[in-house]
């Protein structure tokens, strides 16, 4: 037995890993582009945008009877509602794309030939994640920006921090797809999507419960929201995004709306954004370990 190859070169290995990750990321984007899920997503988005354009123009028609503060409150509220719809579509889309892309390939056997190539499984996983994040981020940026433009054209309202808001929405999609990807290394394709979306919904509801707890001065209820936001950062990021879209003067003007679920009363802290990054790295790491150990 002879070893005729050169000694291990870590740089070559890193280059190979990066190449694999980029190849798989490009493949994932192409998959997203060619699968029916994209068409379904495009149709849903168009319907939402069209409905919101019509709704905002109707809102504008009624502005005559509202004070300017009320009009801004109405516009920023409806914007938050529509953005919530948008974030839901992005979350559902990416979660149902993330699940099948890994678990589906393992189940169908497509993964066998790819993983029998000189690739690290973690590089393949990272590539999938990058591709999905690029897809989710691209989707949020394009549709979110279109939505903001619709609101600006119909009502003249432009949010205070649109870039922040959209970035946080994209981060929310990234968190959810990371969870779906991690689940897809252990359970079936559909189950991973369903569980991820279920947890996303549960966290949002827990956030609303927390808000109600705050309004009622019930600490136990309030803690439900806080804990759930730490366990799965989607709701926390959503609240941060809302703050980027809503008119800052509104809360000062209408303190009664302080605990409304579609308004954010406090800004997102740097620590929370840091925790979200750590959360993503941890869950992606867990997914890597689980995927590496799995027999195919």
């Amino acid at each position, binding site marked *: 037995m*002879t070893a005729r*190859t050169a000694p291990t070169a870590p740089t070559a290995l890193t280059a190979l890993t990066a190449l694999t990750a980029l190849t798989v990321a490009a493949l994932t984007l192409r998959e997203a582009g060619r699968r029916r899920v994209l068409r379904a997503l495009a149709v849903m988005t168009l319907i939402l945008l069209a409905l919101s354009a019509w709704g905002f123009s109707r809102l504008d028609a009624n502005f005559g009877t509202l004070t300017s503060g009320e009009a801004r409150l109405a516009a920023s509220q409806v914007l938050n509602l529509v953005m919530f719809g948008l974030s839901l579509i992005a979350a559902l889309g990416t979660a149902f794309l993330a699940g099948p892309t890994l678990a589906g390939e393992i189940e169908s056997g497509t993964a066998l030939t790819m993983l029998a190539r000189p690739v690290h499984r973690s590089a393949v996983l990272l590539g999938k994640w990058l591709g999905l994040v690029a897809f989710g981020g691209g989707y949020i940026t394009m549709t979110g920006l279109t939505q903001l433009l619709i609101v600006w054209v119909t009502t003249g309202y432009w949010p205070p921090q649109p870039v922040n808001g959209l970035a946080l929405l994209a981060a929310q999609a990234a968190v959810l797809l990371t969870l779906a990807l991690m689940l897809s290394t252990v359970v079936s394709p559909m189950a991973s999507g369903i569980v991820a979306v279920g947890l996303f919904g549960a966290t949002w509801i827990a956030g609303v419960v927390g808000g109600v707890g705050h309004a009622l001065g019930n600490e136990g209820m309030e803690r439900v929201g806080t804990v759930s936001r730490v366990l799965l950062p989607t709701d926390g990021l959503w609240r941060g995004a809302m703050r980027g879209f809503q008119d800052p003067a509104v809360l000062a003007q209408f303190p009664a709306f302080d605990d409304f679920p579609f308004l954010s009363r406090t800004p997102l802290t740097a620590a929370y954004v840091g925790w979200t990054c750590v959360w993503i790295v941890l869950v992606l790491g867990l997914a890597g370990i689980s995927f590496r150990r799995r027999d195919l």
Partner: protein
Amino acid sequence: MTRDTGAAERLLADLPPAPAVWCSGLRKRYRRQVAVDDVSFTVGRGEIVGLLGPNGAGKTTVIKILLGLIHPNAGDVLLLGRPARDPRARARVGYLPELFRYQPWLTAAEVLALHVRLAGVTVPVAERRECLDMVGLADRADDRVGGFSKGMQQRLGLAVALVARPELVVLDEPTSALDPIGRADVRDLLLSLRSRRVAVLLNSHLIGEVERVCDRVVILDRGRVAASGTLAELLGQRELRLRLDGVGADAEARLAATGRLTRAGDEFIVELPADQDAAPGDGAVPKLVADLVALGVRVHAVEPGRISLERRLLNILRADSGEDRR
């Protein structure tokens, strides 16, 4: 220091290349079920080795262990001289799985391009097209895989296994979805690989196929190597088919003294020991015939032949299960 390294490199370069596959003591257990137990074998460079055995013998598990798709509980694997836990060991390995599926949203040409990129090699478009042509898919290169029949997908799988200029090709049931023409194509393909010194590990249920192309065979039964060796070693036993009448007790004793005897009516089959050559002109067979004639037997036909791999396989597996029962 540099001179030393250069000398060492020259020394290593002069050594014969490592086998394409070397595995030792492979063991895989699924809960209480042992799927693979103490499996060891090698596949030399340019050699075609057949992996045979009944359903559930552990053939596919062994293949997946070699390719790092299944983690063994024990044992070591070297692919082309590199430990299999290093993904780069698979840089020159092509694989057609038993369960072949390729991205249905890609075209055949795109699937090949993807695999070339994952293998980290540069293969010009013309060479990739040639590869598709070799498996009969040249005119479907730009069609999406989703519209391919099962047989076409298996042909594409063969092209995928061959596209990145492999030095070792692992084929798990490569003809399961192919028609007779496709099977003949695969046979030609295997022989052309051997002529190019590409090693092949072939798992196939079609024993005739294995017998025609393989240099060596590894027979697995219930996760263990039941037998292995070259075809000449395994099929060394030759047989003699005779059609006789007037066979008395003496003649029958004479036949039985030559080798294990089976009789069906006037058909007699004598298994000749491996060291006896049953080729025409050799002493053993003419002597037997002369003795039989001397004992008053009327000889209608004498047909020397080799035991088929199928019969040998069945004998080995039956003997194996018989031992187990004891």
